């Protein structure tokens, strides 16, 4: 898990596999350096393959930006758990966190690149979702 301070939209990567999440985060860093707040989470609470709400909440906190946070997820449970985590956020934060409907690795890199240019949350989400649409 990593972070950075900037006013840009934060990126959270959620995969069933911590290795995939961390690897995707490495690819994002390679592209945008520390211009974008970034965090990753993966694995269930016992460390097996899966996702967990507490880990996602912690990642959102780490990547928090006043401009909001875009979450990239891999499969079903990652998405459901991420949506659950968003609902559990304080009300003033909830509207500034979105789950993107995009492939996790490619989406994270594209979203972070968009964010690094100072784009707002909606544009970051759109760029990730449109690339493979």
């Amino acid at each position, binding site marked *: 898990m990593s972070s950075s301070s900037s006013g840009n939209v934060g990126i959270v990567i959620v995969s*069933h596999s911590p290795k995939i999440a961390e690897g995707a985060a490495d690819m994002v860093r390679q592209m945008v350096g520390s211009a974008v707040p970034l965090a990753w989470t993966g694995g*269930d*609470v*016992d460390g*097996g*393959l*899966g*996702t*967990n*709400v*507490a880990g996602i909440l912690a990642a959102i906190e780490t990547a928090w930006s006043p401009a909001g946070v875009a979450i990239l997820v891999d*499969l*079903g*449970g990652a998405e*459901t*758990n991420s*949506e*659950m985590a968003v609902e559990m956020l304080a009300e003033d934060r909830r509207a500034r966190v979105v789950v993107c409907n995009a492939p996790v690795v490619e989406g994270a890199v594209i979203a972070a690149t968009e964010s690094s240019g100072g784009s707002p949350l909606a544009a970051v989400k759109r760029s990730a979702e449109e690339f493979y649409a």
Partner: protein
Amino acid sequence: MSLDREARERLVRALARSVIEHADELTSLDQAIGDGDHGLNMKRGFEAVLAALPDLADKSLPEMLKVIGMTLVMKVGGASGPLVGTFFMELGKALPEQSTRADLVAATEKAINAVKVRGRSEAGQKTLLDVLVPVQAVLAGGGDAKAIAAEAVQAADRTIPMLAIRGRASFLGERSVGHMDPGSRSASLLIRAAVETLESEVDS
């Protein structure tokens, strides 16, 4: 329906036992058409619920259901954590402390609708909704505890020929046909445990 502390603890233990004792079966159902973690995930969640006893049973029934739901959300993982957890949390939110059967009918309907929203799913897609929805209909139609328990078992069986539209099993397309949906099986186990524990209250 008003459950005293002893009945609430009995309910929690029965729910947890129903899942934990069938963890291997749930896992093997999930290995057939999913990622094979359903038994372990549900077991972990309900072990965490058991660990919250005895304090958990000191709470009112609605509060207890909410805590069970939140515990499942945080511990189960997979898509089942938020789905089953949402059901318990919303049931707790919707049930008054002293509830009638009509209250239970209304609260289960609300909780099921919340599960539909959470999973963006409806009955007929080979998910736990294929047990929750028909069982709730029996409850709403005045069925007794035996009828509710029987419907839970039959509804899970009816998922066997279904084609999965949601969840990991949907990746298998036609190959999802011929296997029972693991989430339907765990929902069925939980419902049966609940109605058997509360038979006298359900039928009164």
